[in-house]
């Protein structure tokens, strides 16, 4: 039997505020343990939370970017459970009047656009971090509360994804939207972006959903995909053997690359939500929504499509550029100074991205700004330097922060476009390589390429390639 995979995703994203959601402690990753804590986030008796306006607005911004209907009267609730990383024994979250409901995220996979519906978006506080000691036989865990109270956005989809590829496209697109709207840094290695997946299988064509399994402990997008792949196989095997998939929560075991049933007590899931009496409701007037909407940037998919329709880039190139807002901004600044987007695109997607990756730089710290890159591109266009030389000059620009014209002059890299000079060089090469000439006469085409290579080597790449081709051909035909 054929089965269809049905996937839903829950995402937690820490918001990029300066301070925590309900107190003035800094929202920072990597500080010494338990130094960013105060009576509020430690849940000491008698303290009261006060909502961080910036954090609330960031959550609202993401809600708008995900096309949600905003609950213009939104409230907070207590989610009650005991766990050592939760100092108050309840988490301030939202359950009844979530910030946003019924939105969607548009994804593009395999050239097809699809809307993944968002069930709700809500704002809550982070828990602390538990540290499990490596010490054998230890009967304790340690807690660092620096993270407790950091603003956390939760985004829950409907089970709308039908393949691993769609799940991957959703995760990437959502990450880009959160980065574009500048509400989260989305650093999975620091835990500021986390996913939980739910997956079920049903016979193809059947309407009714199969029993769903939730997967936790997914520390990277790769882990999400691996776990989903494993679960698909496990559930299919079970169904094909006539079994039933148990509705349960499973943990991804990164080392063994498999999911395992989570041992929990049934009672643990009774969260007894009730309205948070310490936080006043928030009324969001139309004007506030309009102001925030106006601050939303063009979103990644729209930008990608515009790069294709308006700038004539391929969908693939447009996707690479639009993926990172800073890179796309850089590209657009180049294009505003130079009329051929395709040429700029080649430079950015090949040379700029390669140097960024190799040097582990962010584009904001990249020494070659858009204006400097365009200056170099123009040197190629006017024929002042050849393309291979320009590529080398670019790397030197990154190394030295010097401008292209200065480097070209310092190193004597101006392209040789003087026919008399080139003819002299060609003659010299032919004299040095009589065998190549003979080979060429015998019809061996590679001899031509070999000779061009020798000429380029002799001129250190400075010879004008088109002219070399033409002049060499003439010379060979004539001799």
């Amino acid at each position: 039997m054929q089965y269809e995979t049905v996937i839903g995703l829950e995402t937690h994203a820490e918001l990029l505020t300066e301070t925590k959601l309900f107190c003035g402690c800094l929202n920072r990753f990597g500080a010494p343990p338990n130094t960013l804590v105060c009576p509020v986030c430690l849940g000491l008796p008698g303290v009261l939370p006060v909502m961080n306006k910036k954090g609330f607005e960031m959550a609202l911004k993401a809600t708008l970017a995900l096309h949600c209907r905003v609950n213009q009267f939104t409230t907070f609730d207590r989610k009650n459970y005991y766990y050592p990383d939760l100092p108050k024994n309840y988490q301030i979250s939202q359950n009844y009047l979530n910030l946003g409901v019924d939105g969607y995220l548009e994804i593009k996979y395999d050239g097809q656009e699809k809307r993944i519906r968002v069930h709700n978006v809500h704002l809550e506080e982070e828990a602390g971090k538990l540290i499990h000691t490596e010490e054998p036989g230890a009967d304790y865990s340690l807690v660092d509360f620096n993270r407790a109270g950091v603003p956390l956005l939760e985004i829950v989809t409907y089970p709308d994804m039908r393949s691993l590829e769609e799940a991957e496209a959703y995760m990437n697109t959502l990450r880009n939207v959160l980065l574009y709207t500048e509400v989260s840094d989305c650093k999975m290695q620091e835990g500021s972006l986390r996913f939980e997946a739910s997956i079920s299988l049903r016979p193809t064509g059947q309407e009714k959903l199969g029993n769903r399994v939730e997967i936790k402990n997914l520390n990277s997008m790769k882990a999400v995909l691996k776990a989903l792949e494993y679960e698909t196989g496990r559930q299919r095997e079970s169904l094909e053997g006539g079994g039933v998939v148990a509705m349960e929560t499973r943990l991804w075991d990164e080392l063994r690359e498999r999911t395992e049933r989570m041992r929990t007590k049934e009672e643990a899931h009774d969260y007894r939500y009730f309205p948070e009496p310490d936080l006043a409701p928030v009324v969001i007037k139309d004007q506030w929504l309009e102001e925030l909407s106006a601050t939303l940037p063009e979103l990644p998919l729209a930008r990608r499509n515009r790069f294709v329709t308006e700038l004539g880039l391929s969908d693939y190139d447009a996707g690479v550029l639009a993926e990172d807002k800073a890179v796309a901004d850089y590209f657009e600044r180049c294009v505003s100074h130079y009329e051929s987007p395709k040429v700029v695109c080649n430079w950015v997607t090949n040379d700029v991205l390669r140097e960024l990756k190799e040097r582990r730089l962010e584009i904001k710290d990249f020494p070659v700004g858009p204006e400097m890159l365009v200056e170099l591109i123009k040197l190629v266009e006017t024929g002042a330097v050849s393309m291979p030389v320009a590529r080398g000059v670019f790397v030197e620009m990154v190394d030295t922060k010097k401008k292209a014209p200065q480097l070209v002059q310092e190193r004597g890299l101006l392209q040789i476009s003087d026919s008399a000079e080139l003819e002299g060089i060609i003659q010299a090469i032919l004299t040095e390589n009589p065998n190549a000439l003979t080979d060429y006469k015998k019809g061996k085409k590679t001899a031509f390429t070999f000779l061009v290579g020798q000429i380029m080597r002799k001129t250190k790449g400075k010879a004008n390639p088109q002219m070399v081709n033409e002049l060499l051909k003439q010379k060979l035909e004539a001799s």
Partner: protein
Amino acid sequence: MAILDKKTIEHVALLARLELSEEEKELFASQLGNILNYIEKLKELDTSRVEPMAYATATKNVFREDTPGPSLKLEEALKNAPDKLQDFFKVLKVIE
């Protein structure tokens, strides 16, 4: 009539992390039952056209600016901890 059975009492006690003796379970079942019965009286009111109350007063939109305030010193933060180790709060091992 809300009648609380033993199972419900045990469930509520577990959620509240309370250890109850058999006598206490019986006692609380009847006492909590009475309280619930009393509250049940409210159900006689027709609230179908009343919005659920979200907050006790008419206060709304209380915010603070995103500016740092003081945090506790590590020693202060750990001062009241029942148990600690180095710079951490120490708790019973958590097994999932």
